[in-house]
């Protein structure tokens, strides 16, 4: 009689490396999307603030769509339909594109709130000193408004980092996808998901701590 074929094997130390690598990929895709998305979002926020009617009719509805449609649907739609318009992007690139737009749509409103938080009197004071529009924006609005909405932005960034798990549906082996692979092989979902959760925590926690420390320093 033939020996039974074993499909499953237990969790071993190499799998921890596998998860660690996947965590780095989560970090990398989040870092890229959040950085680019924040810059684009800040520009959209400025357009929303300055653009009045024109922006309300153009940019705002587009941002609303990206904020309102579940990320997983955006990812699947984009990954499958982008090739039709000649964009052959791999799962990573598709993930970055969608996460970036998603981040930008969230940051746009945060950024607009930041500009509003500075207020007209403060900006007039800056302009009365002879600052140009752009000097006022760079040296007064950005630091003051940025600090006002920094906690909100950290919330967006941490949210996007966790939402990057959804890129797993495209087959990109980030933390969640790696966990699923390991669960299939080891049949130990409890252990693996706990470990994956710990990795997510290890990525988020230093950011929230650092953010809290910054806020404390600014509050003096």
């Amino acid at each position, binding site marked *: 009689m033939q020996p039974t074929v074993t499909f499953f094997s237990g969790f071993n130390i190499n799998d921890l490396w596998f998860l660690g690598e996947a965590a780095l990929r989560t970090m990398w895709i989040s870092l890229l999307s959040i950085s680019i998305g924040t810059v684009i979002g800040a520009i959209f926020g400025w357009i929303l603030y300055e653009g009045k009617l024109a922006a309300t009719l153009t940019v705002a509805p587009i941002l609303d769509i990206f904020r309102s449609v579940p990320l997983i649907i955006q990812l699947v739609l984009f990954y499958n339909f982008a090739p039709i318009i000649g964009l052959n992007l791999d799962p990573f690139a598709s993930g970055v594109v969608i996460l970036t737009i998603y981040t930008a749509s969230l940051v746009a409103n945060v950024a607009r709130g930041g500009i509003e938080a500075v207020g007209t*009197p403060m900006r007039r004071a800056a*302009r009365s000193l002879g*600052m140009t529009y752009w000097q006022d924006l760079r040296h007064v609005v950005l630091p003051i408004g940025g600090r006002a909405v920094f906690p909100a932005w950290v919330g967006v960034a941490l949210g996007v980092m966790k939402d990057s798990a959804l890129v797993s549906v495209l087959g990109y082996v980030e933390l969640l996808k790696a966990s699923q692979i390991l669960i299939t092989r080891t049949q130990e979902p409890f252990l693996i998901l706990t470990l994956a959760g710990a990795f997510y925590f290890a990525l988020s926690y230093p950011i929230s701590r650092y953010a809290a420390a910054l806020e404390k320093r600014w509050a003096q």
Partner: protein
Amino acid sequence: MIEIRDLHKYFGTLHVLKGINLDVQKGEVLSVIGASGSGKSTLLYCINGLEPIQDGKVVVDETDVHAKGTDINKLRQKLGMVFQQWNSFPHLTALENVALAPRIVKGKSKADARDIAAQQLSHVGLGEKLDAYPGALSGGQQQRLAIARALAMEPEYMLFDEATSALDPELVGEVLETMRMLAEEGMTMICVTHEMGFARDVSDRVAFFHQGVMEEIGPPEQIFGNAQSEHTRKFLANVR
């Protein structure tokens, strides 16, 4: 010299300034008094171009403030302004607050800008507070900080928009003292104010505004002792 000719200003359909004519000479201290909503603060905003105007013109040292080709940012360096809400930059220390504009607008080196800032801050009595953040300063100190910040641009005119109105009563004195000092140094000043004592003692001329019209202008003795206009007399009787 500041020349204002037939200045009209509307906010929407609201006619806030109804044909103002006014000259302010170099070295003069002019106080502008009147009830809230009489257009006196708006006048200041029109002088340094923070508000567009609908008719007439404002000319500062032969430059038309509202003309198309005017480099308004350059012109504003001549026109220091102090606001009712002092608007100190909360993320910068007192020294950095004052040094910012000389550095980025005038292109001074960091060291030069700091020297100018330190000098202006001691001038207004804040020499001990260079490294304090505005949040740690009293309202009166923040307002003096705002004055130092404006002075650091070496303006030729200073516009004060109710500089003491938002202050607690016990802090008004120190700011008025600073303004008095500037006047004695020969600074050209236009002070929109509710401080009648200051207007009487420090100004060369006092202008009374009533519902968007400059009802009366003259030396303080005239305005406070022998006002020609019924409205002026009524207003002064009420504030005293």
